[in-house]
């Protein structure tokens, strides 16, 4: 079990490097690059531009730049006697610009130690800003996943039990529709109906503005969650209901189901106690893809509903060409996706006694 987990984690290392190289190449391919973004002010003199370029190290060879971004540069040029002047270096020359004075010691820690740099736009550490937004995305994502499972699973079971009946056909049509509907449009229509025309649900945001301080009441927060959760959950409902139906049909053709029926158990007990419990097992493998789907959907859903989470943050950062933020979000969502896949495999193996760790 522990061995299996460790092996899976080791297998993700090449993927992780692939993602970091991809993200890094994208940022360097971006128009102008970081120097242009930081020296946008037309009053910047060429000398200042040079200094910014030297500070960012954009003149270093790109493998060194990539390493600096990945693992930091405090081990590339350092100050061992504490006088503020660099006295040792690795990979980098001590005096890069040739003016006889050593460059200041490296301060970056690199993304593998959680240093994603500073936002070009907000001039703040990226990791702190992400920390402020993770909770909102988690709240929305977890409620959408919960709704998706809570609706998708029973619908799938009932559709399988009434195979080719009206309920089965209805849910089949619903699932195709849920997959084909553009979620931003569904969100807009729901806001138009419930927020604008009927006025019974808020049009966006996570909580109403609180002027007096304190925490807004719980029902207000649930009120704000209803529409975005539903919009984000449509894809999950569609996938889980179809998958649960297929899994349940598979289980219903097993011998033990016939045995249970022939011993005279009520149909309800056979379906739910013998059938559904076993049909649920393969669904564990869907956790990984579901998390990816939710994160991708979050970008659009959070934008429509002004939800202060990671997805909207990423969309804004892309528009503002705030690349440190964009790259941080890419790396963090990619890691969550990979962990989601590993978790769902382990979870699957844990609940299915037929699987042995080899």
């Amino acid at each position, binding site marked *: 079990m522990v061995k299996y987990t460790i092996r899976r984690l080791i297998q993700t290392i090449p993927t992780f490097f692939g993602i970091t190289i991809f993200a890094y190449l994208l940022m360097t391919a971006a128009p102008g690059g970081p120097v242009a973004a930081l020296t946008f002010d037309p009053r910047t003199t060429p000398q200042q531009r040079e200094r910014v370029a030297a500070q960012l190290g954009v003149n270093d060879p790109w493998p060194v730049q990539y390493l600096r971004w990945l693992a930091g540069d405090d081990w590339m040029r350092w100050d061992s006697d504490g006088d503020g002047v660099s006295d040792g270096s690795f990979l980098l020359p001590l005096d890069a610009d040739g003016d006889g004075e050593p460059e200041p010691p490296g301060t970056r820690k690199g993304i593998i130690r959680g240093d994603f740099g500073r936002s070009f736009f907000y001039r703040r550490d990226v990791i702190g800003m992400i920390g402020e937004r993770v909770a909102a995305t988690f709240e929305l994502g977890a409620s959408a996943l919960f709704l998706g499972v809570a609706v998708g699973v029973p619908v799938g079971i009932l559709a399988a039990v009434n195979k080719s009946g009206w309920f089965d056909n209805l849910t089949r049509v619903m699932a195709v529709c849920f997959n084909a509907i553009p979620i931003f449009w569904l969100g807009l229509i729901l806001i138009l109906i419930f927020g604008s025309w009927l006025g019974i649900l808020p049009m966006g945001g996570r909580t109403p503005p609180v002027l007096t301080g304190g925490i807004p009441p719980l029902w207000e927060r649930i009120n704000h969650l209803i529409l975005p959760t539903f919009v984000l959950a449509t894809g999950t409902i569609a996938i889980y209901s179809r998958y649960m139906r297929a899994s349940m049909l598979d289980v219903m053709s097993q011998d033990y189901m016939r045995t249970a029926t022939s011993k005279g158990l009520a149909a309800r007990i056979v379906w739910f106690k013998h059938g559904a419990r076993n049909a649920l097992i393969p669904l564990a493998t869907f956790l990984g893809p579901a998390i990816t789907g939710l994160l991708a959907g979050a970008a659009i859903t959070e934008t429509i509903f002004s939800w202060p989470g990671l997805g909207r943050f990423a969309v804004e950062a892309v528009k503002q*060409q705030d690349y440190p933020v964009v790259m941080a979000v890419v790396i963090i969502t990619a890691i969550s996706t990979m962990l989601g896949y590993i978790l769902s495999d382990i979870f699957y193996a844990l609940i299915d006694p037929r699987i042995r760790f080899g």
Partner: protein
Amino acid sequence: MTTTVAKLNVPRQEHRVGESLTTLALRRLRRDKLTLLAMFILFVLALLSFTAPITTNWLGVSYTRTNAAETFLPIGAPGHILGTDDLGRDHLARLLYAGQVSLSVGFFAAVLSMTIGVTLGIVTGYFGGFIDDVVNWLIATLTSIPSLFLLLIVSAVLLNSSSSPTVTLVLVLGFLGWTTTTRLVRGETLSIREREYVISARAIGASSLRIMFVHILPNLFSVIVVTMAIDIGSLILAEAGLSFLGLGIKPPTPSWGNMLTGARSFFNTGPHLVIFPGLLIFLSVLCLYIIGDGVRDAFDPTAKD
């Protein structure tokens, strides 16, 4: 070809006419009313979009002409069947021209992603080994970044510096969308590779290239058609999402996605502007998904007539 299953059961039949899987599939498709309806609706949508210059000329409207005196006209306003938008442009004309963009971006991006996906799938499935490992690593990397984030970032980087954003968008969607196809085709190729006819082709000295494209590719036909239909749908959705966020097709070129960009501010003044673009995206994607499902069922060798 009029032989039916019932006829086959008649005793002492002289000989039976062999039917290929394709003939059977086409016959099943002809009976599948839902798939036929979806094909018809999609055809009408495409026809209306690509004849937009004729239609708008005949109606005397234009998708670019603004009119400050006639903004937010409701549905059925004189001279404007579906009303006008925030700049007084005819809504119907814009929907039709936007359809040209949305449908063709989805189609051409799907053609590109299928070409890449099928080629890589056959090559990796046939040869395996090192190239298979490299492509699998690439797929693992690309799929671990949530698709929309990936599209957002790549199009933000490339579209700003591009002289022809629509073509660039097609390239971005095509070059990032091949992973699922590759996986599917690779799996199919792995099984076809071991069939007797492939082994006998190899035994008589056929080259790898010939085996891949003459013996394996035709057997992937149904997989390719199904994936293509579903891919066009998904790519139309992706384009709409990107354009909605302001990172795909840029105004003044209309697309169904970017017509909804400012839609939140139209809730009070022109709700019809919110409804139609999304409805058309939904309708075309739904038709494509239904066609994909219908073709898959028709080509299912285990299906009964």
